[in-house]
């Protein structure tokens, strides 16, 4: 396990800074100047070893960013990083991966979203600390499937099996809601107004890893 982390960190440093575009083109720079407290962890070497997209600032899902992003060894994520796959999964996962299209039910803050690649997800909240263009890696999922096969987690899947990334598209709002509050025998009508903001994600990538990269 430890050797895997070390090897990934070595692989990570091999991406030379000249391969990246100039820093002013990187989208997450917009966040730095606003001086608000950042809830999103900077990408650590244990996590973004597979990062190849040059313009992506990759962060763990905020539901578990503080715990698992900093120390993947002691992460409380269902013993997924050390356990080996069961033989039936080893047998059927290549068949699942070979089928043309896939779906995943990814969990964000405990809520499942059944998505395929290219879908738009409107989260029921405004995610703090992200700007449009950021890439989030969703590492919690309860099921992953294709037309004929479904891999179900108990309760969550091993996070080495898949790579699901979502791009932050922006923040949307809704029309103002008006709620009339009345009391009996009283002429006064109180109108409560509310207007919420929502973060929009687009599922940019859904990949199923092959068995060699999972086992190594």
């Amino acid at each position, binding site marked *: 396990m430890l050797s895997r982390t070390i090897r990934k960190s070595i692989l990570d440093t091999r991406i030379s800074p000249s391969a990246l575009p100039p820093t002013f083109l990187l989208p997450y720079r917009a966040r*730095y100047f606003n001086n608000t407290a950042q809830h999103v962890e900077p990408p650590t070497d244990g996590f973004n070893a597979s990062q190849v997209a040059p313009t992506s600032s990759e962060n763990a899902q905020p539901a578990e960013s503080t715990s698992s992003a900093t120390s993947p060894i002691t992460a409380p994520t269902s013993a997924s990083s050390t356990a080996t796959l069961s033989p039936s999964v080893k047998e059927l996962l290549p068949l699942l991966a070979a089928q043309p299209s896939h779906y995943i039910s990814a969990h964000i803050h405990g809520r499942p979203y059944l998505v395929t*690649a290219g879908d*738009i997800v409107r989260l*029921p909240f405004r995610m703090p600390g992200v700007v*449009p263009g950021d890439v989030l890696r969703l590492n919690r999922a309860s099921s992953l499937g294709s037309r004929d096969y479904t891999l179900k987690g108990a309760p969550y899947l091993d996070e080495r099996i898949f790579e699901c990334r979502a*791009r932050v*598209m922006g923040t949307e709002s809704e029309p103002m809601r008006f709620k009339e509050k009345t009391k009996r025998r009283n002429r006064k009508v109180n109108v409560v107004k509310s207007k919420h903001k*929502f973060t929009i994600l687009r599922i940019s990538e859904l990949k199923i890893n092959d068995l060699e990269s999972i086992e190594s």
Partner: protein
Amino acid sequence: MTVQAIRKATVGQNGVGAFLLQCKRLDFHYCDWAGSSRGMNSFLRHTLAKFAAANPQVEMTVSPRPRRHPVIIGHYINGREKAICVRNLQKEQILEKAELLRDASGEKQKRVTKPVRSINESVRGVWSPYHGGGIHV
């Protein structure tokens, strides 16, 4: 034989490969004389340079609009525009409004009840009673 258009194999979706910010231009209008522009003038003097440097993909223009309240207008890729009046606001509040315009998609605001929107075909297809194993009674 009828003429048929060439069918597209894929549909472009912003954010799947490349990502384009929907806001393409922000116009800041101010007035030198009026008191409602005080926060806007201090925003333009102190904050706008850093904000513009942090968002190189958005064009920012500043122009005077005398005897009027200060306004920020966002122009979007889909052709729509969104204007926010920032009279009597402090410069921190104006920055929040500018970030709101930057993050917006430019679409008209709609009430959405389903969280996922998709143009892909159903992965598992439509269930059929005539296929598969079936149950023998």
